[in-house]
């Protein structure tokens, strides 16, 4: 950095919560920045999030989770419209199979009423199966919440960051915070590139690592509980099996293993909930698959292992208290968000509102920008266009006639647009456009995406990575190993 910019607020962590706060702050006449250690936004817990916009009947009345989840849910329609993010209000169903489970289900219904969840209904076996004919016949009662939905979590984080940037916020990826000190009137943040950043206010939204950042700020706190979850994704050919997101009756540790129709149109099953001492264990396991599969088959017997096209795992920030934790330090000038576990995605826009209130209390001036634009420019999703619109976009840019990912019908035009919006890696392109997410899982399109990335970024294909760091896809030019005349070492 040449000249030092002093920021009003710096946010640490570019997940769905950090970017929601960034966007909320970008409405105001402030200088704000966000620091993210991953190469791209949304690559921590957000990337492997199930994408469920919860209704709010899961949370104990009076908790932050209950309040912010119901409030966040109500904000999603406008949010997804403004940011042009796929959001589908498919409704949630919690299902019971035994008398005991039916009792628990009624308890959740009451809890939902207390939390002011709208539109809930209890469905008997017949009504349940009329709505979801592929549910297991043993299911005898269901709690249906039509306000629940699904969103593409990574796209939401991206869109929030893009919209905030368009409104003047700064986003820095690939920078890890190493140290934070406070001089009395400003925070001095040192990043792993040796640079320092200064701000008057600080928001710690570092997710799994929020406990470590809080400790650097001098807080004595209980550690985050890393909780790993595996998820499995099905081919779109079986998407019609289920419409609602199907929940079992929960266990004390988690909401259980679910069947989720994703916002992108694939069915997904998961997650497991395994507490581990590691924050970076994103391996999938044969045991995890067996557990998820045998469990969800009891909900939807027609699920078939053969239709699985992808698997992944993520680690979420388990709360030591069971609720979201909002700590502050430095006379309220630093706010620490901890344990933003489920329903954190749903609550994100409401969490942002709450954080703004906390900052206001600590003295942050909150004057609206007169020219704030809440809308992100519409992203062209070629496949969804009408014939006339397709004709039109191809005429304007022939790159939209070149289908790079044939499973998902993603064009070169969309890929170039994603790179212009900030994609730097193959996964960055994949998560923005869905190129490589289909049934061939990048078999055909990966070489093309590598080539397009290299061309647009002005680097050689050897520098292109799957997801930053040392994840290069190519290791040498052809014939390179033969120089010196020796056949392998």
């Amino acid at each position: 950095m040449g000249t030092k910019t002093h920021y009003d607020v710096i946010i640490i962590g570019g997940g769905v919560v950090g970017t929601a706060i960034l966007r909320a702050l970008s409405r105001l006449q402030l200088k704000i920045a966000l620091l993210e250690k991953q190469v791209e936004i949304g690559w921590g817990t957000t990337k492997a999030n199930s994408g469920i916009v919860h209704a709010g009947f899961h949370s104990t009345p009076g908790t932050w989770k209950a309040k912010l989840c119901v409030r966040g849910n109500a904000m999603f329609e406008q949010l997804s419209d403004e940011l042009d993010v796929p959001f589908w209000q498919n409704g949630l169903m919690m299902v019971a199979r035994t008398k005991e489970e039916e009792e628990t289900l009624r308890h959740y219904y009451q809890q939902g009423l207390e939390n002011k969840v709208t539109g809930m209904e209890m469905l008997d076996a017949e009504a349940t199966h009329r709505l979801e004919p592929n549910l297991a016949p043993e299911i005898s009662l269901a709690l249906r919440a039509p306000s629940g939905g699904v969103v593409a979590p990574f796209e939401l984080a991206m869109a929030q960051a893009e919209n905030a940037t368009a409104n003047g916020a700064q986003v820095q990826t690939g920078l890890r915070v190493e140290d934070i000190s406070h001089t009395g009137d400003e925070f001095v943040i040192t990043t792993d590139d040796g640079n320092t950043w200064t701000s008057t206010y600080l928001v710690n939204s570092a997710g799994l690592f929020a406990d470590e950042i809080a400790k650097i700020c001098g807080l004595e706190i209980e550690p985050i509980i890393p909780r790993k979850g595996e998820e499995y994704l099905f081919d779109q050919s079986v998407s019609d099996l289920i419409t609602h997101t199907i929940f079992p009756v929960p266990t004390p540790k988690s909401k259980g293993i679910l069947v989720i129709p994703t916002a992108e149109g694939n069915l997904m099953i998961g997650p497991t909930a395994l507490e581990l001492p590691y924050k970076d264990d994103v391996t999938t396991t044969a045991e995890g698959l067996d557990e998820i599969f045998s469990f969800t088959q009891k909900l939807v017997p027609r699920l078939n292992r053969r239709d699985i096209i992808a698997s992944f795992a993520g680690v979420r920030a388990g709360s030591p208290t069971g609720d979201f934790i909002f700590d502050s330090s430095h006379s309220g000038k630093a706010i620490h968000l901890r344990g933003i576990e489920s329903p954190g995605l749903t609550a994100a826009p409401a969490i942002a509102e709450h954080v703004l209130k906390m900052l206001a209390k600590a003295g942050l001036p909150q004057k609206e920008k007169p020219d704030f634009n809440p809308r992100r420019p519409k992203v062209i999703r070629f496949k969804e266009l009408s014939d006339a619109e397709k004709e039109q976009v191809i005429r304007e840019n022939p790159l939209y006639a070149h289908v790079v990912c044939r499973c998902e019908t993603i064009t070169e035009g969309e890929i170039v647009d994603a790179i212009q919006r900030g994609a730097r890696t193959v996964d960055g392109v994949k998560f923005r456009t869905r190129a490589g997410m289909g049934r061939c899982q990048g078999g055909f399109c990966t070489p093309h995406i590598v080539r397009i990335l290299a061309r647009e970024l002005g680097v050689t294909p050897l520098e292109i990575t799957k997801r930053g760091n040392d994840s290069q896809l190519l290791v040498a030019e052809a014939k390179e190993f033969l120089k010196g005349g020796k056949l392998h070492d």
Partner: protein
Amino acid sequence: MTKTRQTDVAIIGGGPAGLAAAIAARKAGAKHVTILERSHELGGILQQCIHNGFGLHRFQEELTGPEYAYRFIPEVQKDPGIELYLNTMVLDLSSQQEITAIHPDFGLVKLQARATVLAMGCRERTRGALSIPGTRPAGVFTAGTAQRFVNIDGYMPGKKVVILGSGDIGLIMARRFTLEGAKVEAVVEIMPYPAGLARNIAQCLEDFDIPLYLSSTVTTIHGKDRVEGVTISQVDDKWQPIPGTGRYISCDTLLLSVGLIPENELSQAANIPLDAKTGGAIVDENRETLIPGIFACGNVLHVHDLVDYVSEEAEIAGEAATRYALSKADADAKANERDKGRKAQQVVIKPGENVRYVLPQRLTPGAEADLFLRVTQPMEAITLYLDGVMLARKRQVRPSEMLKIRLRPNHWENLRQNRGDLDGKEISLTAALQPTQPTRLEPETVRGARP
């Protein structure tokens, strides 16, 4: 709005199947043939197959993939009766043969065909389809993707390689990587026998001392950013990993050569019924699908091990599609009636014992046609029977090698003697172990052996 163009025969895909079908269609008298190809060039996957071994049957020569393709490409290019749409992606095909495609200059292209030949090829099975546990680092590629990186783009995707699956592309890539100075540590195959051609096992593995582990699979992928190694384990006879047999192999790349899947999304869009075994359309001896006027050939129909057979099959489809297109030109109403009668009359062939699939799945009684089939496991000394009628004896058969058997008039005579009128009947093709062989299947012996 986009104007709809007309064509006699539309061919979707300009790979080996599409090329041979186009030439055959013109020879059969089609006045206007249209090839729709998504790439900027013709030849399909052959363009990245720079190894030799193509064309032994058809040209009695050993050609490389591009050389084989160029036995067809110039003829297609110089023929004014063949209209070529390169860089053209077909987005939709209706059962009435309206084709919607996109092209960088023409925008949306609409085409109405009198007959259509599907020649879209196939894609590779992936890691997701196998659900291999472990991390998801860079360095896991399908063999065909790696082949493109090396042969077309000129980059090496790895230096120390393990290959899962002994399919032909994997074997070819084992040799290719070795010749490029990379080290192939192992080829791992879950079945107790190799999946690829015997000649590829010899020429690509044995000649380079690359170990092949049978009845084994990759049970974990290791590495955070890039592959650092894999664990391979032996499997039991139900293909389940045997605990305690795991062995770590250090590598930076895992190639997958675990099978090919016909790419039939367009066929499904046109509601063409598919065969669950082949993954391709159900066809008759003309390679006509159950939707009259739509034909299929090449790897979109069933996965071939030799391109020579693809060309042959495509010629059948291209010629038949032309006959259909020209007859359709006369009187549509009558043609529709004829179509129905024709389909109802056909015999349905089902794979029986020891046969994985047979193609075509439907035959017009009396048709002299080649049957193509794959067996379920390697066997020695078998006899092939079609509904009790002996067709052929084979000394040695393997699932990797497609069998071709000519159905002759005397076979049909024998079938009629057994079954009378054959119209609309269902008959099954079996590969039986020859009765002269000492056999475990003798019922008396089995019963007698039990305590």
